[in-house]
């Protein structure tokens, strides 16, 4: 059974049809590359799945169960984690504080519950080790490289029993070496049995890690095929509209 199923999901903003009848199935341990030009509806699709806004029509099923999210927190409770394009990190806090933001480990009882800094630093350190990242839990995010920031954002998704991770342009605006780091992180998440949707503009990244590629154009899905049976040229054609559909 697929972990994520979309059945003719549409999202309209007034007269603008950002998503039009999109179907999608995703299995655990599968990486889906989601490609398309600016305004093709990629981010909207991710935001609908993540509970940022409800779809206008259509159905979303997670693990076979029909879901209706109104807030991102509800999606998170169902195991949907998101790594946002701007990473949603607080520069003024430490890596560990960012990982645990909104779900801090606490000690004490009743109204007297205080932060367990040690436990959070230890657990965050373990997560970074698991992700093979050289991020130190007590360092401020402000002082970190792009790759380390990605590791912090991704470590967040490992806290709960996530079933899928949605990543919006995780390799935009970071150096080549860091891109390799992030792609490794994605492979590790996949090996841990998570389903991953990777939004990217970078063709080489998608072809490096994705099992399948889905192409969107003007709110519609125009292609969804195994990465092995397509080529960068075909995908480019699909994105631009030179190839109508595949």
């Amino acid at each position, binding site marked *: 059974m697929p972990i994520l199923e979309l059945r003719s999901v549409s999202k309209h903003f007034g007269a603008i049809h950002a998503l039009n009848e999109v179907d999608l199935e995703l299995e655990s341990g599968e990486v889906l590359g989601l490609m398309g030009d600016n305004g093709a509806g990629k981010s909207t699709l991710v935001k609908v799945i993540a509970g940022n806004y409800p779809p206008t029509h259509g159905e979303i099923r997670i693990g076979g169960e029909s879901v209706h999210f109104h807030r991102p*927190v509800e999606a998170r409770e169902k195991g949907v984690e998101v790594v946002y394009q701007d*990473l*949603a990190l607080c*520069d003024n806090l430490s890596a560990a504080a960012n990982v645990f*933001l909104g779900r801090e480990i606490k000690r004490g009882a009743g109204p007297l519950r205080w*932060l367990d800094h040690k436990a959070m630093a230890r657990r965050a350190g373990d997560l970074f080790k698991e992700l093979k990242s050289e991020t130190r839990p007590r360092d401020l995010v402000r*002082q970190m490289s792009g790759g380390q920031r990605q590791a912090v954002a991704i470590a967040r998704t490992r806290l709960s029993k996530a079933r899928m991770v949605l990543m919006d342009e995780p390799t935009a605006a970071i150096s080549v070496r860091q891109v390799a780091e992030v792609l490794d992180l994605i492979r590790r998440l996949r090996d841990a049995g998570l389903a991953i949707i990777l939004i990217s503009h970078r063709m080489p990244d998608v072809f490096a890690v994705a099992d399948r590629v889905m192409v969107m154009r003007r709110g519609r899905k125009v292609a969804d095929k195994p990465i092995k049976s397509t080529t960068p040229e075909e995908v480019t054609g699909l994105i631009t509209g030179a190839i109508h559909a595949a």
Partner: protein
Amino acid sequence: MTTDAAKPPPQANVSIESVLEVQQHTVWHRIVATQSFWVAVALAIISLFMSWYQPDSFATSDNFFNITRNFSFIGVMALGMTPVIITGGIDLSVGSVMGLVAIVCGLVLLKQPIDYMPDWWNDAAWTHAWWMAVLMGLAAGALMGLVNGVLIAYVGLPPFVVTLGMLSAVRSLAVVLSESRMLYDFRPDQAATFKFIGGGDNLGLDRFGVHFPIPLSNPFLFMVILTLLLGLVLKMSPWGRHIFAIGGNEQAANLTGVNVRRVKLQAYVLCSLSAAFAAILSVGWSGSANNSLGQSYELLAIASAVIGGANLMGGEGTAFGALIGSALIFVIRNSLLMAGVDSNWQGMFVGAFIILAVVLERLRGKRRD
């Protein structure tokens, strides 16, 4: 086996890591990196200089008692202001809230009946008790904070505009409620207890056989307690963590499930409550309630927090910084007075220190990046 060969030698890795760790995280290193540390150093230098220059007037137990009391009112407000500034907000209404709370306390304690209150209120005894004055004062403060917080956090208006409006509106409310009078003719029995809160010393512990080496005013002791409490809350509570997160990246805090609106509302209520408490202390100390109490104090409270290292862009600030910032402002005032400098020059020095504080912050920021 082959993968092992690709890895760096483990011992070398560990030692570099641990050395870096130690260098970055020694307690001393962290303390020296804070602005409040350098303000404390400046404070110590000024105090030492004044003790040498004016040993008979500055370095006395009396002067210490007076300075520490005088800056406590602003200090308490600066403590409340600090979480608001950390979230990236500002509260310009605290001075007016002080005026309103002073009048509310004064009206409760007043001997004469109040025209616009019902008879049962004017006639009953419990409505004029000292604790009623404290409760009503805090309630008035909390209510003003609630108005600020709802408009800022839930309606989404900019803090500067909302609290600027409230600065004007709340002052006007204070003048109207007081019917343009100064209130001082209090019921003597209730006023005695009320006056002790702000005007007494050593928190009344002398009665229980606890003696301080030198007498300390109640406002100062209350401020010290509140500083410790706020410091703990900011460092150790999830609420404190969320305050910093909102100042760092409000959008991110929201996406990670922090209840941004509620936390912001609470910060504004707390800020107004601290102004209310400062007003209660001030009325108790002076023994009268004036509707002009707290005029331009909002600037001193903000200046104290900023001098102590709070960043008006949000994301930074400490409880100790608020205390030490307000102490510096008042020690400078006191020193200038004693050095015989015309009191009209005080504002110049306070202003220079505010700007200097921001310059210092900028320099530290550069080094950090």
